[in-house]
């Protein structure tokens, strides 16, 4: 079986301290991956660091939000004739081998989307209890609103087939895009599977990552159609 061209889209906003490690790990894991770093208007030289690696670097002139950065990366990867597009975080929480398992899942089963989940096996190590509860609540809400039976609705590691990704429109510039992607999957009746992945809760990622309080903002963004 011929290897498909796999494109990894990494939205990055002020991730200079950690990005180097993330890119090195990914390229060490599989150097055939095409990597797109979308610098979302960073002011700390994120794009310069990305430029040291054999990756594609896109820059938003201003900070728009993670959803907007992903959408830009998607458009670029699709233009470059990507066959599989993977979303990956720049904060070092995700493991490169999980990209491999998502891509394998897409190829081995006739599905459109493979979604990473932290909860398929056991409780993730180091995850704060409050965060686990909020994420649990999000799965219940997602089941009610979209009908998707997903164990982890806000996991940033996902793999899409190009033809499926073309059907997905992201209008949420901010963090509400996670829910938007899921409702797009439901709307287009895309075939999806969850794949167990490991998320590392390091001190850096905890400080940079989403505070659970932000989930209130995300709900607000979804209902008000706020774009930022």
């Amino acid at each position, binding site marked *: 079986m011929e290897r498909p061209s796999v494109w990894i889209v990494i939205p990055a906003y002020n991730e200079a301290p950690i990005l180097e490690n993330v890119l090195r790990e990914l390229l060490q894991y599989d150097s055939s991956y095409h990597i797109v770093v979308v610098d979302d208007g960073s002011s700390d030289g994120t794009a310069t660091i990305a430029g040291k690696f*054999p990756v*594609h670097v896109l820059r938003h002139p201003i900070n728009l939000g993670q959803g907007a950065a992903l*959408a*830009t990366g998607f458009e670029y990867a699709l*233009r470059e004739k990507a066959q599989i597009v993977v979303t990956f975080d720049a904060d070092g929480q995700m493991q490169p081998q999980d990209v491999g398992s998502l891509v394998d899942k897409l190829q081995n089963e006739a599905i459109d989307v493979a979604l990473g989940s932290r909860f398929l096996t056991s409780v993730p190590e180091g995850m704060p209890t409050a965060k686990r509860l909020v994420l649990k609540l999000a799965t219940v809400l997602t089941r009610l609103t979209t009908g998707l039976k997903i164990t982890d609705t806000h996991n940033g590691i996902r793999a899409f087939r190009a033809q499926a990704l073309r059907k997905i429109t992201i209008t949420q510039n901010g963090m509400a895009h996670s829910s938007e992607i899921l409702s797009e999957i439901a709307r287009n009746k895309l075939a999806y599977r969850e794949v167990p992945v490991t998320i590392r809760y390091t001190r850096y990622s905890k400080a940079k990552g989403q505070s659970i309080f932000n989930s209130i903002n995300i709900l607000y963004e979804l209902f008000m159609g706020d*774009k930022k």
Partner: protein
Amino acid sequence: MTPITPIKIILLILLVIVLRAFLVQKSLVLAKRLFVFLLFFLLMFLVIFPDVSTRAAKIIGVGRGADLIFYLSHLFLFFLIAGLWRRCVALAASITELSRTIALQNTNRPQEKSEKAREKN
């Protein structure tokens, strides 16, 4: 005829200033210009003859004329905010579009691959 009190003069001057601020906007289309003009004309009329608004309030069951105007202005402001909100959302969408276009035009490709591409050409 009700007497001319200082508050009336203050309100009238304020109305004229706000009206002027509206009308100097060149982008305002004629229909909106006319609407703004009529609205201010009505407001000025109500300032000079407050009894009219009180009578109107009584007819629809509101206590005082000032209350009626208070309610109506809330409604009006609500519509104004809704319109502004819509405009903000549209503006944000076009800024996103613009930023994306700029980002996609200035891409940095991996070194080795662009060299290969040059060899092909």
